[in-house]
């Protein structure tokens, strides 16, 4: 049996310490309490910050437990439960929009499709529940990235420095610069919904909005996907009627999960 790993023990001690202080602790306080050199503590804090277990208050510089730690503690929303709660609303969205509907949750660095409703026409379609989609090239993924701090593409999370990140390209429309994606995310946070055109599949557009639970935490995204001719208007913008259907559905599912209406 391998021995214990000292740095993990120290990380656990830091987390325990942070959990005890409501206002957060400074680097000096942590290093004094644990009798560890500041440099060691800082390295561990940075790592914990990177995985979302620790946050640093931008004003005071104090450290506290991060959102990732909180979602570990409270029971995380089971994808099968999300599907059960969303079933009727997803059907309604498919029938109003005339497009296929998918609900996605974050799975590591990708979007996991937990629910799929066929487009209401007589064409042959296959259920793609369980499929993984890229975060940066789908509306579901962009929405998750905009509202869930843990939703980060693999390419970004594996880079240590602040050097520009190049994301995987799927079509000639895929936005591959992380900086450009970040700008899109600002827009999504502003509007409360997101979309992409032909970034994953040529000729296809997707539109999505966040699903929130009673804590206001984004637990998934719901959206439609369909042909560019149907979902994008002549001026190159998404069809706003479809956007409103998607947002209605997202709000309805969120309400079912106990979120207060926004």
């Amino acid at each position, binding site marked *: 049996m391998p021995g214990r790993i000292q740095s993990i023990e120290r990380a656990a001690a830091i987390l325990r310490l942070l959990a005890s202080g409501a206002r957060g602790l400074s680097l000096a306080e942590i290093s004094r309490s644990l009798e560890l050199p500041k440099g060691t503590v800082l390295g561990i804090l940075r790592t914990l910050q990177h995985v979302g277990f620790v946050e640093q208050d931008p004003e005071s510089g104090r450290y506290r437990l991060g959102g990732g730690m909180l979602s570990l503690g409270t029971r995380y929303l*089971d994808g099968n439960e999300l599907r059960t709660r969303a079933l009727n609303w997803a059907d309604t969205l498919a029938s109003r929009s005339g497009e296929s509907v998918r609900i996605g949750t974050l799975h590591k660095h990708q979007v996991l499709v937990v629910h799929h*409703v066929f487009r209401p026409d007589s064409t042959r379609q296959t259920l793609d529940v369980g499929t993984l989609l890229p975060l940066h090239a789908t509306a579901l993924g962009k929405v998750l990235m905009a509202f869930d701090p843990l939703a980060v593409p693999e390419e970004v999370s594996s880079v240590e420095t602040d050097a520009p990140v190049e994301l995987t390209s799927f079509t000639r429309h895929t936005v591959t610069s992380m900086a450009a994606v970040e700008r899109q995310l600002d827009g999504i946070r502003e509007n409360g919904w997101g979309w992409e055109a032909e970034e994953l599949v040529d000729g296809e557009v997707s539109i999505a909005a966040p699903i929130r639970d009673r804590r206001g935490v984004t637990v998934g995204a719901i959206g439609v996907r369909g042909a560019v001719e149907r979902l994008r208007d002549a001026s190159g913008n998404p069809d706003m009627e479809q956007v409103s259907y998607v947002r209605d559905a997202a709000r309805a599912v969120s309400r079912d999960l106990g979120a207060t209406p926004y």
Partner: protein
Amino acid sequence: MSQQYVAAIDQGTTSSRCILFDRDGRIVSVDQREHRQIFPKPGWVEHDALEIWTNVEAVVQDSLRKSDITPDQIAAIGITNQRETTLLWDRETGEPVYNAIVWQDTRTDDLVRELGAEGGQDRFRAKCGLPLATYFSGPKIRWLLDNVKGVRERADRGELMFGTMDTWLIWKMTGRHVTDVTNASRTMLMNLETLAWDEEILAAMDIPRSLLPEIRSSSEVYGESNGYLAGVPVASSLGDQHAALFGQTCFDPGDVKGTYGTGTFLVMNTGTEPVTSNNGLLTTLGYKIGDAPAVYALEGSIAVTGSLVQWLRDNLGLISSAPEIETLARTVDDNGGCYIVPAFSGLFAPHWRSDARGVIAGLTGYVNKGHIARAVLEASAWQTREVVDAMNADARIDLTTLKVDGGMTADNLLMQILSDVLDAEVVRPMVAETTCLGAAYAAGLAVGYWPDIETLRANWHKAAEWNPKMPAEVRDREYHNWNKAVRRTLDWVEHEDQA
């Protein structure tokens, strides 16, 4: 002209709902209200019929108000209801003589045994399609006549009316005393061939003819509503399972729908002739549209499907919510040799063994909670297979597609297992509310809101579909093992424990 809608009232066992549908069969508005379950003694279940009526009036109004729809925008009202629940009321005052006796109520146990003493449990089966059982309305009427003071005399004087919940609501709304063939088929009192009350059964059960409503089709204008929806035609009545068959557009012989809730109801359209079951299924009406010939059906119900998942949650605590069963079951690739037969109160169709009790079979040290979760889901699928096999044998038609609805259809793994063990396509329709949709369709057809059945078929869309992936030899081996587990449930209850 402003947009028109059809209102479907679903008077169910625990609540009453009203759903408004548009021409594409889409849900526009929903309102729902629960009513009290009254348990005067163990095994007795009653509803307050006046409370139900008040709730129905409220949900109709609120479903319109919620979506700013006015009564003149309602083209027709359709009704679907909990079946067999029995009410007697005064023809003049409208006052119920007693609470409604709910279908699950077992107070007629002794009466049913007494009626079966001569000619056995299947005494009336050839005529009405049903075995003697506590569920059905006939024995419940007889109990009221025998046990509620003054009821027999008032009935003999022609002062009282009988109705299932559809009849009660239609009478409250229109003043007409009518029922439809599907609801009448659950009383044990209707002759399946003639679709009229059977004098011989009435005499045997000692029920006065004067109590009974007129039997009409499932889709025709029974009368115009009074009250909030004044002037709107009341134009359909279908028992809940029959409405779901119609809402799933199971219009062709061999079409089967399965509603997966705490229990499961499977109904197969068998065409315009009643099929007698040699495998313990019930022969019943599917629906009857106006003057068109009646369509018959075979029904098989499974007592324990979703409730087995609840048992895993509440009694074993292996999961904290029902949908988590799928998560747990997906932690393993197969059942690990474990099988669960949930014969909690005996085995029903097609076995009919009240001496059976549940087993968990095939346990080894290897089996973990994931395998148990998988065996729970598989139990719903194999029980479906048993009923479908019986249906195929009785109707001599092979099922090709199972149309599913109900809460458990959210479980994708269960749907895949169902498809695997049935070796058939399993399809979930876009509108999960098939019961209400069926009632709306039947009402809309009667008033010309929808021109014909073909239009309804065109409205039906797949939300999801599952196809068999299991190799035939695996299916055969698993079915063989399931049957072995079923055999181990038999002869458990011995005579002296039965009370």
